[in-house]
């Protein structure tokens, strides 16, 4: 049982929670995730650790309401507990001094991008962060990202905040402006990561993406999270979640994460009608 000690809605369907988990807080590194079960009948879902405080003993999670589980999670209040929480899982982000690193976070992906930007900065890199959202209110954690980066660029699809356009437009502009980039790290919707990787491939800029597949155990036991990377099958939960963006088969992955859409809708409708 892990107690919720803070909760806030960032938008009507995006929320952030601080959860008591002293051992995970102490152990976790940038890029790692947890698996949680909300209640007795709950499913196991992975969420990236967005932040942590090892002294205070909490980790922060950011989630978007996309189905029943995230909905139920969002309804828990401060003082309530999450039934099961396992982590830290996955391999941490590989941190070294690359030089100039562009960290791209799209929508709810900004949350997991945050600790990566922090760690890259601490690792002695110059960090340029590009934050993208469909509209202004979906550009989250701007202050935190500013603290973790040298420069922050914001894009919105509808132009309601920052530059109008996609994160790839902002990245293209950096490249066109002659900014030398040693590494790109992209975290966000698969389609965003796909197009970022496509762009950087053209310019041969090394690119890391963090994949958010469906998972069950998160320990490498079931293979539900498998993706094709460079023609080989990899398990996101133990081999990842970060992979070389130029090698990931995003089309296959995007199909796989749609696998339970009808069931997810059924569960959500049923929950809302109760």
């Amino acid at each position, binding site marked *: 049982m892990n107690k919720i000690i803070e909760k806030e809605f960032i938008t009507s369907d995006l929320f952030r929670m601080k959860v008591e988990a002293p051992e995970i807080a102490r152990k976790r590194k940038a890029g790692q995730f947890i698996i949680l*079960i909300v209640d007795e009948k709950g499913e196991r879902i992975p969420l990236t650790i967005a932040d942590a405080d090892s002294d205070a003993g909490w980790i922060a999670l950011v989630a978007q309401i996309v189905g029943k589980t995230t909905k139920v999670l969002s309804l828990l209040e401060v003082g309530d507990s999450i039934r099961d929480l396992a982590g830290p899982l996955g391999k941490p982000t590989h941190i070294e001094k690359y030089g100039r690193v562009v960290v791209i976070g799209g929508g709810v992906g900004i949350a997991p991008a945050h600790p990566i930007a922090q760690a890259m900065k601490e690792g002695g890199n110059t960090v340029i962060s590009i934050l993208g959202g469909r509209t202004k209110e979906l550009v989250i954690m701007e202050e935190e990202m500013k603290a973790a980066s040298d420069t922050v660029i914001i894009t919105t699809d509808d132009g309601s905040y920052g530059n109008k356009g996609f994160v790839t437009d902002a990245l293209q502009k950096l490249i066109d402006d002659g900014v030398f980039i040693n590494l790109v790290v992209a975290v966000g919707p698969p389609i965003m990561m796909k197009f970022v990787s496509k762009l950087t491939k053209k310019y041969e800029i090394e690119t890391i993406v963090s994949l958010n597949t469906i998972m069950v*155990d998160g*320990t490498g036991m079931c*293979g539900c999270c498998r993706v094709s990377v460079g023609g080989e*099958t990899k398990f996101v939960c*133990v081999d990842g979640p970060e992979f070389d963006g130029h090698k990931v088969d995003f089309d296959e992955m995007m199909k796989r994460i749609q*696998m339970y859409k*009808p*069931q997810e809708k059924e569960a959500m409708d049923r929950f809302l009608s109760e």
Partner: protein
Amino acid sequence: MDDKNLTPKERLKIPPQEMPEQDPAERINNVDEVPYGYTEELARMEADRCLQCKNKPCIKGCPVEIDIPEFIKAIAEGNFRESVRIIKETNILPAICGRVCPQEEQCQRYCIVGKSHKSVEKAVQIGKLERFVADWEMKNGEAERPEIRKSTGKKVAVVGSGPAGLTVAAEVRREGHDVTVFEALHKPGGVLIYGIPEFRLPKAIVMEEVENLKKMGVEVRYNSVIGKIFSIDELFEKGYDAVFVGTGAGLPNFLNLPGENLNGVYSANEYLTRANLMQAYSFPETDTPTANSRNVAVFGGGNVAMDSARTALRLGAENVYLVYRRSRKEMPARVEEVEHADAEGVQFLLLQNPVNLIGDEDGWIKQVECIKMELGEPDDSGRRRPIPIEGSEFRIDIDTCIIAIGNSSNPLIPDTTPDIETNRWGNIVTDDETMKTSKKGVFAGGDIVLGAATVILAMGQGRKAAVAINEYLETGQW
């Protein structure tokens, strides 16, 4: 019947007693256990078939050497409590083993009664008797718990709560050591809980055995992935004096076929975990979904394949094909499971092998292409090697495919503990007798050492490890 007056000849005349079971047409609509178990009368009748052989040949076939004729004698005499006590001297989980052990390859294979009838199927039904007394104990009040020695102040960490880990926990705790079991998942039991289905091993039994361990003072910590939350070295730093690694063979093998990552293609581990551990059979009552399948192909011929096929039927599939590259005789599954699958309507496609998985434009599996096989010369395993017949390819329409061709060792611990030696299959290398690994203070056993094996072999290694751990903690000598 007065047992003592039965002559061996009369005993040999008693036919093997069948366990009453749910009707196949009925049971594919529920997940309840298939056989109901013996009644007292049936059990005593079956026990009367035992000849009480002086040299006890059946014991030779039992990996933990249960005193089989003695426990059977106690049943014949109606002394069920004594019977369980005898079994539990060497096997702490009889309700589980009675249900899942491959008795026809173990004790029952050596049984003189079977040999006299020239049929292992006519052997004394040792497993069913074991199940009967274990169930009797569970139904009749508190299970007897072993005496716990005075606290030694020593601490042992057991990694993994499968049959190997549970056995170690019990046997080490008995000696008065503190035991903490670290389990990666949110429930205990390993394969017993996530893999083997409810209809074959009710989960309440596994949970009750773990409750008994807790009552003995064993602490169980769930959601604790060792190698991630603590390394083995950190366990020692936290004050554990010895560590047992029983992390199992939880790494699903795939066939490396084209189309293996299509939607609707599962490893058996995933399919069974969704159904059992996550109770997807109650979706949307529970939150974990699984495929809504109509036509399912399962690849493999072992227990895992049978469990997957029978689970698919219970989840509502209309056609379940079991594709196996050898013939029925070579199937490694327990005979009872093959028979149950057959009776329930699983369609066996024998001497056939999948070669290609074909998807539709949305990325869903729609067909499997198989090739026919014939049996050639025996291979290393002694079974005849299947050889593809050229040009015999054909396709089956399916919407779900379950790959049940085995598991390899879970690499989490070896990857994060480089000073534990492994072999080329990733299994941890141990001393055969003491289960000591190459790292001081660390023991290992079960599937992580044996590769995917059996419950009873995992328990057998757990017992050996426990003896060695207890000795190591007493003498401090490695």
